[in-house]
């Protein structure tokens, strides 16, 4: 019976695939088993290392770079733009970190064993999930399909990394019935301080993370299903060596309930609606830093609920995705400073004075296959963004009389063209979009930035940031090799950045002054990447990647945190059950650094990694063991985006074991 329904779904699947949308087959789809198995076994891993953190996995992508403040919770930069400019979602759900210093990007609240893939879209193509400038990162959780032949599936992964004594255990299990599906995962990671290339311990770089998730799905009819999800993440005692504070505790509970309906015929082929709720709490802690002059509490809370509803349309050579996004977020952050005489009155203020953000937007992506070889896509979104500051009197100190509420209209448009000529592939696109200032940019109050050592003040009256974007790519691919070049260029009007205010004095004792978020007239960001892979012979293949970026403000000065020319190259050799990998990655000297924004020049570095693995079956259980070394030559380095130039990890021997049953 169910085979009947696979046909439309498969059609949809193929069509979608042909359109180059990276879409994970969903649990409620009834898919053919080959496909399904691929999904079940798929896990986030890089070619170098099979047990990676989410951050390490993202780092292997060519348009992601990171600001690092330690060993944990790296802030992902998409197209060399900070997280305010991209939308980061989990299965389309909006989540906002609760730390004013961006110590908890959304990616820090998931674990590699509850994700199947990360869908990265550059620029306005990412506007499906809401208004963006840089693009979108959608973290896709694993979903087990209904009716697998093998009802119980699971994986267990453990490992030890010698440099920071990281010990991790990751387990996940799924049950696939005809009517009922359950997915569960649990993971523990515990790491001590790491040592740098000079064998010096980097103090306050430890972390502990616990993550668990559970999803239950029930098939309500042959073409519909309901699904409830919950994810809980807790990080404790996390050190940030580049900061004057650590994390005592952060917790996230991320929940959703979804209903999905498939249609066998008609224009609408699938309709998926989800309501969600997530709450994050984040407590910074400086009690491990006796050198601090001031003891300070910095708790933060972020609560979001929302709705995401998506329809997939298909008719002949036309396909479309329509998505409705609506959410409400309340962000609260406090600071309480303790006087040296603790019997005296504490000093209190909000760094986020109860800021509500409401967003509702409708997005659409359309695809037409205009010929066998070419395709046009056209999309856009229209969003309404509302902000309210409950204690607007905080904002009045720097912006007297500013209204407590602000509503913005956020339009976006993008168009693209793709052409395949034999082994060659070309694409080009244009985009236009607005984004609203983030909570910190709009309403932040004395948020200390330990990179440039300024206290930052938000400006509720900032204009929308407006991005004009062009992108192009060209590639060649055959059975043995492939090469792709991608460029994108962003001209961003009203680019929001902190500028020194001549007035006001800092509040945090480490700071040197006060910066206010202001709009530059414009800024320009340019990214280029080159990817190539080559099968030297059947067992040996190599890959290489080269990226370069350049970004300037309206005066022609450099913007901060722009990746210098950087490269990754790797070789993979497979022989029977053995695999060997080696890779080289590094950055060239940072030429275009930005002293005006607190940067100094970062020298070039190269890191060499090797690993070997062995796969065998132990009582019908597929087992892989891996051993390897990162930074084999124990290079002492820090990257352009390492906060406070903290050195990165020195030589790290890692071992891991993975079993699939």
């Amino acid at each position: 019976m169910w085979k009947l329904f696979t046909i439309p779904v498969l059609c949809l699947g193929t069509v979608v695939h042909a359109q180059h949308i990276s879409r994970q087959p969903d649990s409620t789809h009834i898919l053919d088993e080959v496909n399904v198995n691929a999904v079940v076994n798929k896990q986030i891993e890089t070619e170098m290392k099979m047990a990676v953190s989410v951050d390490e996995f993202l780092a292997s992508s060519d348009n992601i770079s990171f600001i690092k403040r330690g060993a944990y919770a790296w802030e992902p930069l998409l197209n060399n733009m900070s997280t305010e400019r991209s939308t980061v979602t989990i299965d389309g759900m909006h989540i906002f970190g609760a730390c004013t210093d961006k110590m908890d990007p959304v990616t820090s609240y998931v674990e590699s064993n509850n994700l199947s893939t990360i869908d990265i879209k550059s620029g306005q193509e990412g506007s499906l999930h809401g208004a963006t400038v840089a693009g979108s990162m959608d973290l896709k959780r694993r979903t087990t399909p209904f009716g697998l032949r093998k009802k119980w599936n699971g994986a267990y992964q453990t490992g030890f990394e010698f440099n920071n004594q990281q010990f991790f255990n990751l387990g996940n299990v799924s049950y696939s019935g005809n009517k009922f599906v359950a997915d569960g995962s649990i993971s523990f990671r515990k790491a001590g301080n790491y040592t740098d290339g000079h064998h010096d311990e980097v103090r306050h770089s430890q972390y502990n993370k616990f993550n668990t998730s559970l999803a239950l799905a029930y098939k309500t009819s042959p073409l519909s299903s309901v699904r409830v999800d919950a994810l809980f993440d807790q990080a404790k005692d996390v050190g940030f060596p580049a900061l004057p504070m650590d994390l005592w505790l952060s917790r996230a509970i991320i929940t959703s309930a979804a209903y999905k309906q498939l249609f066998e015929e008609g224009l609408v082929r699938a309709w998926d609606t989800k309501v969600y709720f997530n709450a994050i709490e984040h407590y910074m802690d400086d009690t491990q830093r006796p050198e601090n002059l001031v003891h300070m509490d910095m708790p933060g809370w972020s609560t979001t609920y929302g709705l995401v509803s998506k329809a997939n349309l298909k008719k002949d050579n036309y396909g479309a995705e329509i998505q409705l996004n609506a959410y409400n977020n309340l962000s609260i952050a406090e600071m309480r400073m303790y006087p040296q005489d603790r019997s005296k009155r504490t000093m209190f203020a909000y760094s986020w004075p109860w800021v509500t953000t409401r967003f509702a937007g409708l997005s659409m992506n359309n695809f037409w296959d205009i010929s066998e070889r070419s395709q046009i896509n056209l999309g856009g979104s229209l969003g309404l963004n509302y902000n309210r500051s409950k204690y607007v009197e905080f904002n009045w100190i720097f912006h007297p009389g500013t209204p407590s509420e602000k509503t913005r209209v956020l339009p976006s448009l993008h168009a693209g063209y793709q052409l395949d000529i034999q082994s060659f592939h070309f694409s080009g696109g244009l985009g236009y979009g607005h984004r609203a200032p983030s909570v910190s940019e709009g309403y932040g109050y004395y948020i200390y930035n330990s990179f440039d050592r300024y206290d930052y003040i938000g400006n509720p009256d900032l204009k929308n940031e407006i991005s004009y974007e062009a992108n192009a790519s060209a590639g060649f691919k055959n059975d043995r090799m492939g090469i792709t070049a991608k460029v994108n260029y962003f001209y961003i009007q009203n680019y929001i950045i902190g500028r020194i205010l001549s007035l006001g004095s800092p509040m945090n004792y480490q700071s040197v002054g006060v910066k206010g978020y202001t709009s530059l007239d414009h800024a320009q960001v340019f990214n280029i990447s080159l990817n190539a892979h080559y099968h030297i012979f059947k067992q040996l293949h190599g890959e290489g990647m080269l990226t370069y970026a350049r970004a300037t403000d309206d005066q022609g000065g450099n913007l901060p945190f722009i990746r210098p020319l950087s490269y990754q190259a790797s070789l993979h050799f497979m022989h029977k059950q053995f695999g060997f990998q080696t890779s080289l990655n590094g950055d060239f000297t940072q030429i275009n650094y930005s002293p005006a924004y607190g940067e100094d020049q970062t020298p070039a570095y190269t890191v060499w990694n090797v690993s070997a693995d062995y796969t065998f079956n132990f009582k019908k259980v597929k087992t892989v063991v891996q051993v390897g070394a990162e930074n084999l030559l124990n290079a002492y380095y820090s990257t352009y985006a390492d906060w406070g130039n903290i050195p990165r990890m020195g030589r790290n021997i890692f071992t891991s074991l993975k079993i699939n049953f």
Partner: protein
Amino acid sequence: MEKVIFFLVVMCFAVLSCTKDKTDYEAEIDTVVTEHYEFKEAIVVHTRAFDIHIEALNGTFYKGYNEIRLKVTDAQTRENIQVTAATFLPILAKADGSKNSCPHRYDLVYREEGNYFSGYAVFTDESSQGNWQIYLSFTIDGEQYSATHGITVEKQPNKNLNMTAFTGKDDEQYFIALISPQKPKIAENDLVAGIYRYHKPTQPAGTFPDPAQFSYSEVSGYTLQLDPRMPEPSMGNHSSINNKDLIQEDDGLYHGVVNYTMTGNWTLNFILLNQKGKIVKGTEVPTDFTPGVEGAKSELYIDILF
């Protein structure tokens, strides 16, 4: 299924277990500040057939600025009596025999809307320093009555209503008393202060209490320059922006704006300028950010706390 239940149980515990509470912002400010906005009867003076009621905020006289309201009623019928004029003179008698007054309004002003006489007194000392007496007089149907009564002046628990007394460079005695805000916020606050001067008597004293010996007035046309800073050493002489110097308005009081960027101790550093812009008292304070070092105060300042 058991695993599922186990997961759910673990999750429930994890979510419900304790976390830090959010700060209740209103309650946070209330912890050290009590705001009084209700006038209550402070004393009743019986004189012949009349009762003189004096009201103050919270029914208590505090050191610093006190707005007072005076009403006269018939002692028998308790009906309001039409009074045509009223005077008010507080005198502090100290153990050493000295008798002083404090800034006050001698001729009370009739306020029709509330049917009372309005005045104020800036008590410079608490009752622990000496005995305060108030000397009252009022006129009914052309006949003058007078009365006197002891009062208790209590310590002002709200530092936002602090006062200071000093001798200016012109050798005159000045008083600055904070009047508003009683309960500041982390915000722009309208700052109201009264600035008074003692007039040295020019003639020998008449019969006690001779009001000419105890004459004070609101200074007019002065400017009170303001530089608020946090004195806590770890705050490194932190200040705020968009503050406005206090200038006199029609009510005779001095109005300005102070921005408090966070709760805690603040010092209002002042420089008092006379009508000609000459410094009467006060010094400029360093504006440097000096973490770990307490900022220097002006020689004219008032500390507040909220």
